[in-house]
């Protein structure tokens, strides 16, 4: 499982990084966080988690006042004007292993986030202390950028500070200045609808997709590095993804049929095995249904009224 908040704080202590911890009720937004951690403690940060069309993921951590223009950023990364979009909730859980409202530079400590690019606001460097969530949205820590850098270096990451408000021209003779920070590996997060036709509309914090029974999930042809993420979650996938669901059913049924064909089973035993299989598959189907309903519930909660 992912790094826990306590594990992270221990690591900071081991590295002798000076930080101050603030505990508070769970907060999902900067505004809420600001109620509990005053700006005298340090500069609050806003943290964005997004991806490009080739399934490469990025965290941008910036001062609250810094204007971050996603179109400009996309161009500077060499992805064209509309090349990025907010990452879906599943990616948050699977790659960063944090909950909603909890994106933080610290999330890159997780192995699963190995291919996520981290861009930090260069304005942080002018601050005495900056405030981030240490993998939990019930805690905030403030520390100096030197502390953050020390931590990143300890996990073999080069801290990357960028002038996020700059808007340099990008063209034939001016290559995108941030292209070097695009991850070399893409990561496959299982998705439920086909990627290209989904139109993503705000809110940025979470994206939900309707389950279309006919849509096929992205075939698992991950780059070797991304593969481990998919494999670990294959059983969870069976609850969400129609193809995986059917695969699981086929696997279990053929195992039963094979053993029957080999004559391994006495009649009575076959009957029991069949019953067990039925019960297992029904359970699988219920979890699948519950997951689909939950996704619909989420979509319902976040849907916008019809535009008249």
């Amino acid at each position, binding site marked *: 499982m992912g790094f826990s908040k306590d594990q992270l704080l221990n690591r900071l202590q081991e590295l002798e990084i000076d930080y101050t911890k603030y505990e508070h009720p769970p907060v999902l937004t900067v505004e809420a966080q600001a109620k509990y951690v005053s700006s005298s403690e340090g500069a609050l940060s806003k943290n964005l988690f997004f991806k490009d069309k080739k399934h490469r993921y990025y965290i941008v951590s910036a001062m609250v006042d810094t204007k971050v223009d996603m179109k400009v950023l996309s161009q500077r990364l060499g992805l064209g004007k509309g090349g990025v979009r907010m990452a879906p909730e599943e990616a948050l859980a699977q790659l960063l292993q944090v909950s909603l409202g909890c994106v933080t530079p610290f999330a890159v400590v997780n192995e699963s986030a190995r291919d996520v690019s981290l861009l930090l606001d260069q304005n942080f460097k002018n601050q005495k202390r900056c405030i981030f969530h240490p993998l939990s949205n019930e805690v905030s820590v403030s520390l100096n950028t030197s502390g953050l850098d020390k931590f990143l270096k300890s996990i073999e990451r080069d801290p990357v500070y960028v002038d996020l408000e700059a808007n340099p021209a990008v063209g034939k003779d001016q290559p995108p200045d941030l292209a070097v920070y695009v991850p070399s590996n893409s990561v496959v997060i299982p998705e439920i609808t086909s990627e290209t036709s989904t139109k993503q509309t705000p809110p940025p914090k979470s994206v939900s997709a309707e389950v279309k029974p006919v849509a096929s999930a992205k075939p698992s042809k991950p780059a070797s590095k991304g593969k481990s993420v998919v494999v670990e979650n294959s*059983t*969870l996938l069976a609850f*969400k993804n129609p193809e995986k669901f059917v695969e699981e059913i086929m696997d279990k049924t053929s195992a039963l049929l094979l053993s029957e064909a080999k004559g391994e089973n006495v009649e009575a035993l076959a009957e029991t095995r069949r*019953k067990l299989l039925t019960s297992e598959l029904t359970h699988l189907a219920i979890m699948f249904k*519950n997951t689909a*309903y*939950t996704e619909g*519930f*989420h979509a319902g909660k976040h849907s916008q009224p019809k535009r008249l």
Partner: protein
Amino acid sequence: MEVDKKDERESDSSEQVVNPWEVSAKDGGKIDYDKLIDKFGCQRLDESLIDRVQRLTSRQPHVFLRRGVFFAHRDFNEILDAYEKGDKFYLYTGRGPSSEALHLGHLIPFMFTKYLQEAFKVPLVIQLTDDEKCMWKNLSVEESQRLARENAKDIIACGFDVTKTFIFSDFDYVGGAFYKNMVKVSKCVTLNKAMGIFGFSGEDHIGKLSFPPVQAVPSFPSSFPHLFPGKDNLRCLIPCAIDQDPYFRMTRDVAPRLGYSKPALIESSFFPALQGENGKMSASDPNSAIYVTDTAKDIKNKINRYAFSGGQDSVEKHRELGANLEVDIPVKYLSFFLEDDSELEHIKKEYGEGRMLTGEVKKRLTEVLTEMVERHRRSRAAVTDEMVDAFMAVRPLPSMFE
């Protein structure tokens, strides 16, 4: 369930004590279920009822019915009568979220309730009594609410259908129609009566006194206007452990006075601790039970080291006398969780006559429990906070009888 010191006044070791806060056998022996049924005034669930269930649901009755785990009832035959005529019912069960660690004994009522939901195709309400635990266990309100949500995830992992299940926590849901029924019930139960049923005394705080109506009113469909509008005659069936009977005796007593149908009950016996029937399963002793968070290794260790064996001291003696199946825990546990009737019979015969050794029985039990716990863990991992929100949303359930 905690031992209320007030109960000591009532209980003496020559009588067994069974109530929502204490369960103890006479003189440290076994619970006498026949006496209990007599004392409580409920009925034995006999073969004919089980056969009827099989006929009405066109499927094999749940292993807990076949093995007599759920062994007592009140008015279950009436529920079946009505069902046969096409009158449906709804299910009501609950959990007091006192700890994050759930063990297999906690799952039993939920496993059975899930079967009932599937077999009869009826809706279910699940009450999380976070208020009760806040009061009895002196937890903070926030902690008990948090535990309620965590427990909800394990409950959902048992495989309930979200289109037919409403989970609610008292702190969230009490109010409106639910509260109106609570007041109606409260008016019908005198202080003296409550003290008699539940053992309250002048030292207990008034929160405890006013709790029983909270657990009573989910038995009435009008408590859930978003689920059962206009269906005031819908009957309720409550699967629970037999120590909860006092709450529902009170409810059944009050119901006719409010013009409501009496809820029916189907009750289970107690799940023994690993150390034996006389041991107490306690959250503070991790070796008294198998937890849903135990690893395969933990399960193997616990069974091997702590499961009380009815086998003889030496192999020779064992082959001669056979095992004492009455006290043997592994066999008891298998009778709860091993699906295959014939395999269980075989084990009982071979072990009881000394041909099978304890080690083999324990090995089989470890297999069965590990698979169960693994499957539970997998399902649990898929339960997100959002899924809990969906189950707990106050929403209609249009396909609840399908």
